[in-house]
């Protein structure tokens, strides 16, 4: 974990990709007799290099959360290949090579904040003193160092998510998977959390795959934005975000920022109408910004 203020890796850097998806598709079997199988994902090809921050954005039900879970081996693919760090997704999960942050913080009420962050360290059998030290380090990283003995219900939603992030980073994974982690927060907290997340990302150099509903959030945070179409989800376009390295509150005022947001929005609309068999029905649901 180095202070990488100047040596942030840029996308497209050579080296083996962290995530490699080739022809990935996912079909859910029918849930009850009589219902049809659900085509969640089709023909997904995506490569993610180390140090990138990649957002997945798309309309509700487009499969972006499913795609994240496919990478994390929390649901199996029905077609195509998933490689994480050069191994199968399953091996990567068993090797605990990624950390995941869900939409809800999923903290355990019966553990203190510190103990919650220690959870992955306990599972991997680290000795007690090392566990506590590492957990404190992570909590300091997310700036919750004074709250180690608090209980989860005593913290606000934003703070709980920060604990969840600290927990996801406890094993120093190469990859961080985040499923709309700030979706339940209000706009102002969300913008603060965006800045926090970028600061942490810069400190740790982890590769991030980030699912979101929010176009501004996707553009603000990422090096690349993957725009997905409505179900069955396929990649409509991958947008390179060429905003300056240093992102802060002023970045949201840049003209280039607005251009990128519009670009992404247009791509989204294209993805929707293409999948609704030609009808140019613009559904604005689920999209903000």
């Amino acid at each position, binding site marked *: 974990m180095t202070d990488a*203020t100047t040596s*942030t890796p840029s996308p497209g850097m050579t080296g083996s990709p962290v995530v490699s998806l080739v022809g990935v598709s996912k079909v859910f079997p029918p849930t009850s007799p009589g219902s049809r199988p659900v085509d969640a994902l089709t023909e997904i090809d995506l490569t993610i290099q180390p140090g990138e921050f990649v957002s997945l954005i798309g309309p509700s039900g487009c499969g972006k959360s499913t795609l994240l879970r496919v990478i*994390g081996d*929390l649901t199996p693919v029905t077609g195509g290949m998933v490689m994480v760090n050069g191994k199968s997704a399953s091996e990567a*999960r*068993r*090797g*605990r090579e*990624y*950390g*995941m942050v*869900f939409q*809800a913080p*999923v903290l*355990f*009420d*019966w553990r203190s904040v510190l103990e919650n962050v220690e*959870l*992955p360290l*306990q*599972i991997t059998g680290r000795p007690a003193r090392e566990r506590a030290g590492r957990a404190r380090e992570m909590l300091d990283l997310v*700036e*919750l160092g004074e*709250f180690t003995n*608090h*209980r989860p*219900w*005593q*913290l*606000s939603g*934003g*703070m709980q998510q*920060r604990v969840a992030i600290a927990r996801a980073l406890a094993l120093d994974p190469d990859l961080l998977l985040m499923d709309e982690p700030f979706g339940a927060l209000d706009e102002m*907290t969300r913008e*603060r*959390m965006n*800045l*926090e997340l*970028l*600061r942490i*990302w*810069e400190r740790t150099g982890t590769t991030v795959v980030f699912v979101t509903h929010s176009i501004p959030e996707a553009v603000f945070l990422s090096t690349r934005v993957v725009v997905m179409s409505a179900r069955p989800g396929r990649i409509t376009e991958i947008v390179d975000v060429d905003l300056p*390295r*240093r*992102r*802060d*509150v002023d970045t949201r005022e840049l003209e280039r920022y607005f251009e990128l947001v519009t670009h992404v929005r247009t791509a989204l609309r294209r993805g929707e109408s293409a999948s609704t068999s030609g009808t140019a029905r613009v559904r604005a649901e689920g999209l903000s910004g």
Partner: protein
Amino acid sequence: MTVSAPSGANAADVSAVGTILRGPTIGERIREWSPAVILFFGALASWELVVRVFRIKQFILPSPVAIGVAWWTYLPELASAARYTFIEVIGGLAIGVTAGLLAGALTARYVAVREAALPFAIAANSIPIIAFAPIFNIWFGLDTQFSKMMIAAVLVFFPVMINTVRGLLSAPAPALELMRSFAASERDIFLRVRMPSAVPYIFTALRISATLATIGAIIGEYFGAPKVSLGQYIVTYTSYLNFERSWGAIIFASAIGMGLYVVVVLVERIVAPWAADRSTAPT
């Protein structure tokens, strides 16, 4: 990318945290309980008044004061009877709770067991198990404490088992998914997620077990027990129409049940404070 905005992320949150940490003050607790206490003593007082004004005979309805006097007068024999019955209650709780926890853990773990055992347990819970009390007396002896312990144990076993299963299966899906993302073993998941999730349910079952075990012991004694037991004391003096003394024994029986209930509540507060807050809120 560097971030130049100051991360005062905690500033807005800290004030919110402060208010949640403070518990109820003494004044608030008194205000919360006083209407109930007033009502209770008011009811007692009216009862006393009615008995006196209408000169109701004790074998129809004894007055609270008369009951209190009888209780005090016969305290030694009541206390011995209470001690005798208390052992049955505790023993029954110990056996029933242990067996219920084990059965619950097995049932939750193996789907095949669950499909058969759970419907049976729920049905068995609706049987008047007390009807089996004479059988237990025959098997384990009319005059032993063990036979009544077994009745109490069986009464307690089913709710404990069912609620243990409920609790173990109540682990929320996101928590299980989280554990899978850490490639946790089944053992890890059981110890770190399922068991803690089950704790509130188990304590709830323990609370009702306190009452059930008391009921089991006393009714078991109604079917036959040594004279020095609360159940026989109640039955004997009821048949003499000496209700003051019966009620004296009933007060002890209630005290045992309520006392154990309070003990469970206190233990829960110490062992599992996160659960206690939610499950014992008045309304």
